[in-house]
């Protein structure tokens, strides 16, 4: 009996299928640019063939059929029955896009969401049973007919064993997923209100062994967290050593520090991938948009080999794609216009990435019409905003939500998400967006982001109208403050049997917060008093490098999803300062 491990399988499937699609796209674009070679046809054939098998295994029938058709087309090309013409390349690219849609379709994500939350026991309980998965979307109409999550659950429960019923975390709507096990899958016609998601068993043949393994980022994060925990342990050992003063212990602690640093660096390096993964995605976008808009464009890519954190690559993809689309829709002129202006008919879009110290710089430049200052000024006036003086003003205006000089949104850029979204995404990465433009000649957007993304879990707290973030490792417990005790030189708060000094976060930052209702207890003695607790969140830390802003007690800033900037507290420094102040 094979153990059911479809969760890993689902994740592997997606990862691998998308890698093949990326390969297919790259080969097709090569063919289009440099002509057909037997190797490229073979490569395409192999990838489509593998995709067919993969999709078949997870029950994505339509995707399997599509891959099969592509494979047949390539077989005929291989046999010399017809050439790989431009039209056929288009058909294959369309197929690749359709496949991508299907694979990224929510069904796959429903499966992985449900499977990822199964407990060990639930998973083991699946045994040899036939597993099926369906979803139910509640609507007022259904509720009026008494078709609701409770009634659906009851009826499903009669047809099979419900292993797990759970709400799905999706954009706007609420859906429920039911994972069922039984001797046979329930008859879908008996449940017209449900959508069924294909589930495959994991008896799938394994890929031939290679020296590379795919590892999910969360697993690397887990390792990183453990390294962090080890460092904490080391720090405590060192404290003990300061008390007992033992040479052997001291040497071991020093050695352990070096080893831990090495380990942290090694884990950090594991997360690095070449930037080429994102840049190659640009090729497809450029090709599509330039066709749509009737512009001719040459794409120059540089810096594909630069190694960057996987997460950074993922988060940079959308902003860069957007900037490239912008360049093609707003920047580059059509062939006729370029000819009339005496420019080369084909425009150039260059995307150049390089490392600059601890930052990654990407420059997206087009040799198009430049940004029309006049037009921006008029639009600014229309909105009651001051006219731009410097290029920075210009960029600020362009990055305002809803600011567009285009009369209507078109397909490429300007689908309601504009530069504001790009700028916000870059800021969230702790980076900066800047602009250079010359009328009639060029526009360049420069993205500069720190190479090392520092991501931490924080507890968000509220004081007055301000929100602060306390790094999770500093939070030992949270208490409700019922009464405080005023003593000479400060305030004490009751924490179980102990009284601890209270530090009002409001006082530290000059924010009027009233009497704190909650206390964040760290293992550093004092309790941080706040008005409200807003919850845990994972945020990207932006360190404060500007000496005018940086101050002890602040570990950095972060931007919340709402765009709100929040200060991250450096608890050890705050506590140190406060104790020193009290002593003085």
């Amino acid at each position, binding site marked *: 009996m094979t153990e059911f491990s479809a969760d890993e399988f689902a994740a592997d499937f997606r990862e691998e299928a998308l890698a093949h699609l990326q390969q297919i796209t790259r080969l097709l674009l090569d063919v289009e640019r440099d002509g057909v070679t037997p190797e490229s046809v073979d490569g395409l054939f192999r990838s489509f063939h593998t995709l067919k098998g993969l999709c078949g295994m997870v029950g994505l029938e339509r995707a399997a059929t599509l891959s099969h058709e592509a494979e047949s087309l390539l077989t005929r090309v291989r046999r010399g029955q017809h050439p790989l013409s431009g039209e056929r390349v288009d058909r294959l690219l369309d197929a690749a896009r359709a496949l991508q849609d299907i694979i990224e379709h929510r069904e796959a994500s429903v499966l992985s969401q449900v499977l990822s939350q199964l407990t060990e026991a639930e998973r083991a309980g699946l045994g040899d049973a036939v597993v099926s998965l369906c979803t139910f979307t509640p609507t007022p109409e259904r509720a009026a007919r008494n078709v*609701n*999550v409770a009634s659906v659950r009851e009826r499903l429960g009669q047809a099979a064993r419900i292993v797990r019923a759970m709400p799905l*975390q999706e954009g706007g709507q*609420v859906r*429920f997923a039911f994972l069922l096990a039984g001797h046979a899958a329930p008859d879908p016609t008996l449940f017209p209100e449900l959508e069924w998601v294909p589930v495959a068993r994991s008896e799938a043949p394994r890929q031939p062994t290679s020296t590379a393994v795919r590892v999910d980022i969360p697993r690397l994060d887990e390792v990183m967290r453990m390294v962090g925990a080890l460092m904490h342990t080391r720090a405590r050992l060192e404290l003990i050593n300061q008390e007992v003063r033992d040479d052997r212990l001291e040497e071991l602690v020093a050695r352990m520090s070096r080893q831990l640093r090495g380990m942290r660096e090694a884990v950090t390096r594991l997360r690095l991938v070449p930037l080429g993964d994102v840049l190659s995605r640009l090729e497809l976008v450029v090709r599509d948009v330039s066709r749509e808009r009737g512009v001719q464009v040459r794409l120059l890519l540089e810096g594909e080999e630069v190694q960057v954190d996987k997460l950074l690559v993922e988060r940079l993809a959308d902003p860069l794609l957007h900037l490239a689309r912008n360049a093609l829709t707003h920047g580059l002129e059509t062939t006729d216009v370029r000819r009339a202006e005496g420019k080369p008919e084909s425009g150039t879009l260059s995307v150049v990435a390089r490392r600059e110290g601890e930052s990654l710089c990407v420059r997206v430049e087009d040799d198009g019409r430049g940004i029309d200052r006049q037009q921006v000024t008029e639009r600014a006036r229309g909105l009651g905003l001051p006219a731009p003086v410097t290029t920075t003003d210009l960029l600020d205006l362009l990055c305002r939500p809803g600011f567009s000089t285009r009369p209507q949104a078109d397909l490429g850029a300007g689908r309601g998400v504009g530069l504001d979204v790009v700028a916000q995404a870059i800021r969230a990465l702790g980076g900066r967006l800047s602009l250079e433009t010359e009328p009639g000649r060029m526009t360049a957007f420069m993205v500069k982001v720190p190479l090392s993304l520092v991501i931490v879990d924080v507890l968000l707290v509220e004081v007055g109208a301000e929100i602060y973030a306390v790094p999770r490792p500093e939070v030992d*417990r949270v208490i409700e403050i019922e009464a405080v005790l005023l003593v000479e030189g400060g305030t004490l708060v009751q924490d179980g049997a102990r009284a601890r000094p209270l530090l009002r976060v409001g006082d530290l930052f000059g924010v009027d917060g009233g009497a704190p209702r*909650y206390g964040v207890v760290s293992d550093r003695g004092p309790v941080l008093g706040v008005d*409200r607790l807003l*919850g845990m969140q994972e945020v990207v830390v932006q360190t404060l490098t500007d000496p005018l802003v940086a101050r002890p007690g602040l570990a950095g800033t972060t931007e919340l999803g709402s765009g709100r900037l929040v200060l991250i507290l450096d608890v050890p420094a705050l506590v140190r300062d406060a104790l020193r102040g009290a002593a003085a």
Partner: protein
Amino acid sequence: MRKMVMAALRPLQASFVEAGTGLEAIEKLALETFEAITLDLNMPDMHGLEVLSFVRNHQAYQKVPVLVVSTRGEDDTRTQVLAAGATAYLTKPFTPRQILDALRPLLVEAPVD
């Protein structure tokens, strides 16, 4: 328990919708708009914390105040609940007066940014 809570909250002169399980609660949330939620950690199908984290992770319900009630009075439960985004926490047993006092401020407070 639900009947008791609703009886205790009657002075608020609000209308109540009750749900017997976590899934039902989330369904109700999807179909109607609410000014506040009281949530018992002890439910037949889901843990109250799961419901709470679902609510907090969902854009549409992020700002709805949630009062969590539970028999578990241990400190770590309280920490977990508050860290998971509960607006307030009340330990059973409580008097009608206590739950009323706990919920009333949640209804007038402006939603969090």
